[in-house]
């Protein structure tokens, strides 16, 4: 019998059987990507406004830091199983967990983005007669945009690596390969599933890194 399960996982990946049909790699990857995007976007809707508020006003900073820290400690597996017991199988339970998982990075990204603006610059803007909203959107945000995108980057990588848990409670995604491989001792399939998750995470990481570079204001890009 052939040796390494790692080598076997490569032949699993290129086997045409796994590239078509309802359980195909492209389909599962798209599902995985969809769960990740949905989780991060919903989290962003909640976390970014709060982060911007905290960063701009400086109010409730310690509360935000503490909440983000506590949220980081929440074990995702526990959340997924608990929510699933409460709301049943399907996407709701894992999605809720992914949102919670994504919030700390996004929150931290948003408030540090706003905070990063030099206080002297902000005061200058205020002296010029800008409203607080204008200061936030025209001064603080453009300068801090790379940090905000950095928050998205951190959240996305975390969620994409964890989105396999959706398959634990009746949904799809690349976790299907991983759990099925684990349950049936098909390690090549499990490794292949993991490699796909890693590849997806790296691609997203690179894309967001690029976005981080591109969103830096031209004048600040030198650093």
């Amino acid at each position: 019998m052939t040796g390494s399960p790692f080598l076997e996982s490569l032949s699993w990946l290129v086997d045409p059987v796994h590239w078509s049909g309802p359980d195909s790699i492209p389909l599962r990857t798209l599902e995985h990507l969809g769960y990740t995007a949905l989780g991060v976007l919903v989290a962003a809707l909640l976390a970014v406004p709060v982060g911007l508020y905290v960063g701009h006003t400086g109010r409730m900073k310690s509360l935000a830091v503490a909440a983000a820290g506590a949220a980081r400690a929440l074990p995702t597996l526990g959340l997924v199983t608990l929510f699933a017991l409460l709301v049943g199988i399907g996407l709701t339970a894992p999605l809720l967990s992914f949102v919670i998982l994504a919030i700390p990075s996004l929150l931290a990204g948003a408030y540090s983005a706003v905070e990063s603006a030099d206080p002297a610059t902000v005061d200058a803007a205020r002296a010029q007669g800008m409203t607080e909203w204008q200061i936030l959107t025209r001064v603080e945000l453009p300068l801090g945009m790379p940090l905000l995108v950095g928050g998205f980057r951190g959240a996305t990588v975390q969620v994409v690596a964890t989105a396999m848990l959706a398959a634990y409670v009746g949904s799809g995604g690349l976790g299907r390969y991983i759990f099925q491989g684990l349950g049936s001792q098909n390690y090549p399939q499990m490794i292949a599933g993991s490699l796909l998750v890693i590849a997806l995470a790296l691609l997203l990481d690179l894309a967001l890194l690029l976005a981080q570079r591109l969103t830096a204001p031209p004048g600040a890009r030198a650093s």
Partner: protein
Amino acid sequence: MTIHSTRRHLLGALGAGSLALGAAACGSSDPFSEEEAEGGGSDGGSGSGALTIGSQAYYSNEIIAELCAQVLEAEGFTVDRQYQIGQREVYLPELEAGSLDLLPEYLGNLLQHYDSEAASASPEEIHGALGEVLPAGLRVLAFAEASDQDSYTTTSEFASTHSLTAIGDLAGVDEDLRIAANSEFDVRPYGPEGAKEVYDVDVTVVPVEDSGGPLTVQSLLDGDVQLADIYTADPAIAENDLVVLADPESMILPQNVVPVVSEKVDETAATAIEGVIAQLSADDLVELNRQSVVDQASSADIASGWLTEKGLL
């Protein structure tokens, strides 16, 4: 490692040396088995009066392990409990290495671990086959009447609407059939492929990784799926008035409870364990499980209650 095992009748292969050989080759191809044998778990103590008892990460299995633990303690053995171990490929090597001495198993799944192509047969035949495929140092004791096997289960409403009593009746149901089960059900011989081949029934698996637990049951009750793989000793079947579809062709492997033991389990210990197993009826196992999930009692309390009631303590 082939995923899709071709169905093959165990009866034909029984007694043939090829079965044992095939299993041995299969075992050695597992890249992790040797390393695991050296690693995990604590040492099981070396005194002849000390036994280490393990259980799967399954409350029902832990209760059975605890039944054995308590009768062994009553016999004067010192028992080290190592419960809630995840999976076969984790604890079987530990049994072989002697860091575990006893673990309650299930006939069909245990055989399938060593012979992935093993097809269904009677409990006696599987028990006999196990004698041949188990690695040196391991043996199975007598098996119980109690069984905890996979099933095609549906709601009584769905069963009466479509006049279902057996799995084969599903062939006449004119809608897409989805079955909630652990994801590995998809590649088991009694999964979709077996259902198609044996009963000409098409089902798709909706993976729910709680091994027929409350999530699986709930998805069936909610109508997310029409069928669920619920283990037959699950009290949820009676509680929710579910219907276990009959399997007249014996597609599903029997999963009677069977203790697998190391060489350190001597005759005294084996007799004590078999005394428990002999009394463990199918209804008993459902009741023990009910006390765990409904009354939320601990395995120790459930076990001592049952043993006292049966006059074993």
